[in-house]
C-alpha cells in the first residue's frame, strides 16, 4: 500500500481494475497469453485481446476452450521457454488446479492474475477467497493485492520472482471490488518494465537442438526430493521477493518493502487490537482504524501481502505486542476453521507471545463489509481470552441466523 498521498499522481489514470491489470501485463509483453472468459476476471483477457488486436503487442493470444487448457497451453509455452500469462477466477481456478500443481513440479514460472471469487455451490459470482485458498498447497506462490495499483504491480513482481525461483505465481485481487472499480493507478511503461524484468533465461526448455525430457515420472526413491525442491524454492522465494520489492521501489517509486515485502501494516506498532486480513477489505479497515484511533482506541492492521510462501516470521513479529488479534477472512476450511486463522495460529506456535485470537468469517460471496461491521468486530475481539472454545474463537458475524435451518 503506497503511502497516503494528498493528491493522485499525474502519472495515474482512472480506469477499471481489469483494464489496468491488462495494461500492466501488456507492458510486460508476454510471449504467450491464454484466454478464457470467467466473471469477474474476463475484463483482463478482453482488454489484452484488444491490445493484441490493435497491434500494440505481438504476443500469441490463444483463445482456449477452457481454463483447464488455459493453464495447459501456458505450461507448453513456458516449457518451450516462453513467458506465459493467463487470468482466471473461482471455478476456472479449480479447473486449472490439476495442471497448476504440475506447473509447480515442472518448475514453470507461469503467472496468473486471479480475480478472487467464491466457489459453487450455490453458484456465486462474487468476491471471496475460497478459490485461492483451495489452491494454496500446490507449490504456487500467492500474492494478495489491496487496490488496483497493487494488482498491477504484483503481476509484475510475480514474473520477476517466478522466473528466478522457477515456480508459478497467482496474483490475487478481489473480484468486482477490485476488478470492476475505477480508480487512479499508474500503468508501468515498457521501458520501466524492461529495466525491472530481464528476459527469461530458463535452465531447460523444449529446444530440439538441446533435447531434454520434461515431466518425467519419479519413483518413490526420487519423488520426495523432487517435491522438497519445490518447498526449498518457495523458501528461497522469500529473499527473492524481498530483493524484488526493493528493486521495484527503485524503478517505480512504489514502496512495498515493509517487513521484507511480506506483510503490510497500518498503525499496528502500538495497537492493542490487531486486525489481520487479506486483500481489498483492508482498505475499509484502514478507515475504521483512523476513526477508532481518533476516539483513542489502539487498533491496527496487519495485512499479509504474500500468502505463499507464508510470512510466519514477519507475522510473529508484527503480532508480538498485540493484546488480541482479530482475523477477518473471506474463506473457511469447511469442517474446521478459517485456513488463514489456522495458519496464523501455527505461525504463533513458536512465538514467545501468543495473543488470544478470534476469527471472523465475513464478506463471503460479495457480502458487503461496512465500517460498522468492522467496528463491531473490533469491540468483540476485545473479549478474546487466552483459552477459548472453538465456538467462541470463530464466528460468522454477518450470518443471517433467521434464515438458516441448521445443517442436516
Amino acid at each position, binding site marked *: 500500500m503506497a503511502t497516503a498521498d494528498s493528491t493522485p499522481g499525474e502519472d495515474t489514470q482512472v480506469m477499471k481494475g481489469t483494464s489496468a491489470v491488462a495494461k500492466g501485463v501488456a507492458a510486460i509483453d508476454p510471449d504467450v497469453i491464454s484466454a478464457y472468459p470467467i466473471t469477474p476476471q474476463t475484463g483482463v483477457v478482453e482488454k489484452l485481446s484488444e491490445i493484441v488486436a490493435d497491434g500494440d503487442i505481438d504476443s500469441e493470444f490463444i483463445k482456449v*476452450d477452457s481454463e483447464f487448457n488455459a493453464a*495447459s497451453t501456458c505450461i*507448453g509455452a513456458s516449457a*518451450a521457454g516462453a513467458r506465459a500469462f493467463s487470468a482466471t477466477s473461482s471455478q476456472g481456478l479449480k479447473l486449472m488446479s490439476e495442471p497448476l500443481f504440475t506447473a509447480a513440479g515442472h518448475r514453470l514460472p507461469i503467472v496468473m492474475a486471479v480475480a478472487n471469487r467464491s466457489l459453487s455451490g450455490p453458484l456465486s459470482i462474487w468476491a471471496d477467497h475460497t478459490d485461492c485458498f483451495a489452491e494454496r498447497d500446490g507449490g504456487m506462490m500467492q500474492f494478495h493485492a489491496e487496490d488496483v495499483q497493487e494488482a498491477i504491480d504484483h503481476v509484475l513482481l510475480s514474473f520477476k520472482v517466478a522466473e528466478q525461483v522457477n515456480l508459478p505465481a497467482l496474483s490475487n485481487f478481489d473480484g468486482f471490488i477490485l476488478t470492476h472499480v475505477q480508480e487512479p493507478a499508474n500503468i508501468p511503461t515498457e521501458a520501466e518494465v524492461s529495466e525491472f524484468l530481464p528476459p527469461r533465461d530458463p535452465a531447460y526448455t*523444449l529446444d*530440439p537442438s538441446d533435447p531434454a*525430457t520434461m*515431466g518425467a515420472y519419479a519413483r518413490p526413491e526420487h519423488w520426495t526430493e523432487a517435491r522438497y525442491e519445490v518447498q526449498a524454492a518457495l523458501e528461497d522465494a522469500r529473499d527473492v521477493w524481498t530483493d524484488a520489492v526493493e528493486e521495484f521501489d527503485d524503478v517505480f517509486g512504489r514502496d512495498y518493502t515493509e517487513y521484507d515485502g511480506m506483510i503490510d501494516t497500518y498503525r499496528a506498532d502500538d495497537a492493542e487490537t490487531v486486525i489481520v486480513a487479506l486483500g481489498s477489505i483492508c482498505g475499509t479497515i484502514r478507515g475504521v482504524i483512523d476513526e477508532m484511533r481518533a476516539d483513542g482506541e489502539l487498533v491496527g492492521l496487519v495485512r499479509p501481502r504474500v500468502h505463499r510462501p507464508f510470512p510466519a516470521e514477519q507475522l510473529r513479529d508484527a503480532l508480538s505486542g498485540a493484546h488480541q488479534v482479530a482475523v477477518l477472512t473471506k474463506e473457511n476450511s469447511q469442517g474446521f476453521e478459517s485456513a488463514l486463522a489456522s495458519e496464523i495460529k501455527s505461525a504463533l506456535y513458536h512465538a514467545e507471545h501468543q495473543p488470544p485470537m478470534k476469527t471472523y468469517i465475513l464478506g463471503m460471496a460479495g457480502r458487503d463489509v461496512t465500517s460498522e461491521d468492522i467496528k463491531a468486530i473490533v469491540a468483540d475481539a476485545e473479549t478474546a481470552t487466552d483459552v477459548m472454545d472453538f465456538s467462541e474463537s470463530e464466528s460468522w458475524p454477518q450470518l443471517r441466523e433467521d434464515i438458516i435451518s441448521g445443517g442436516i
Partner: protein
Amino acid sequence: MSSELQEQDYTDEIDHEGELWNAGHRACAGCGPANAMKYITEAAGENTIIAQPTGCMEVVSTPYPESAWGVSYIHNIFENAASVASGIEAAYQAFDRRDPDHLDVADEDDLNIIAVGGDGATADIGFRALSGMMERGHDVTYIMYDNEAYMNTGVQRSSQTPYGAETTTSPHGEASVGNDTNKKDMASIAAAHGVDYVATASISNPHDFKQKIETALERDGPKFLHVYAPCPVGWGYDSSKTVELARLAVETGLFPVFEMEGGEITNIRKVSDRKPIEEFVKYQKRFSHLVGEDGDEEGLAELQAWIDGRAEDLGIDA
C-alpha cells in the same frame, strides 16, 4: 532343433547411435505402441518436440532420471497433451516473430511439434484439449495410438474399445456381451473440425504410417493421425502376434486404413477377400467369449455387422 542353429552373440557389435526412441524403455515384450513411438521418431527426426499425455508410452519411457527419448519431450498430465503442444507451438510462433535466431534448426518450418497420446487420453479424457487444438488451427500433428483400452491402469474400456471386447470395466457375463459400444470415429471427428489432413494407419505397415507422418509434418496447421497398435497384455494374446493382429485388424475391416484431405477420403487401402472378424478375435482372450462352441454368436455377429456397415460406407472392399 535349436542345437542345430549356429548361435552367435552380436550384442557387443550393435550400437544404438542416432536412435531417437531408445532401447531400455520398459514397455512390455511385444508392445505395439512401442513400435509406433519408434516409427514416429524415425519419420520426424531430431528437430522434433513431442508432447505426451500420461499413459503407457509415457510411463515406460520416462522413469526419472532415465528417458527413452532422443528428441525434446514433455509429459504433463493425462488430458492435456494437445493443449501443451498448442502452447509449445504458440511459443515458437512468438519466438519466430520476436527472435528468429532462437532456434538452432534451419527455420521454424522445420520444427515438428507432435502430440502422441493413447486412445483414452485422446478420444476420451483429452478430447476437449484435442478439439480446441484442432479448431484453433495450431501447427501440431496429433497422433493417437490406439490399443483399444486404458492399458496403463489395467485394461479398462475406452471409447475405442470394440464391440464385444472384454475389459476390466466391460466384463462379459450373463447380462453383458462385454463392451457394448463400437469404436468412436475419431478420423471423421477430426475432419469435421476442418483438419486438412487426417489419416489412419496400422503398425503392421510402418512404411505407410511413416509416409503419413511425413505428409502430416509437411503441412501447416493441425493434423490428426490414428494408428492401430495392439497390446498383448490387454488383449490377451501371445506377444509374437502383435504385428499379425495389427494386420488382421486391417484385413478384417475392423480398422480401415485411409487418408482424408479437406474432409474427403482421398486414399483408402482396399481389402480384397475381407476376412471374417473371427479371424481377428480368435487369438485374443478379450474376445474368447465370442468364439468357440459356447461362444456368443450374436455378439460376434453384432461386431461383424458394424464392420460390414462401415466397410460399405467407406468402400473398402476391393
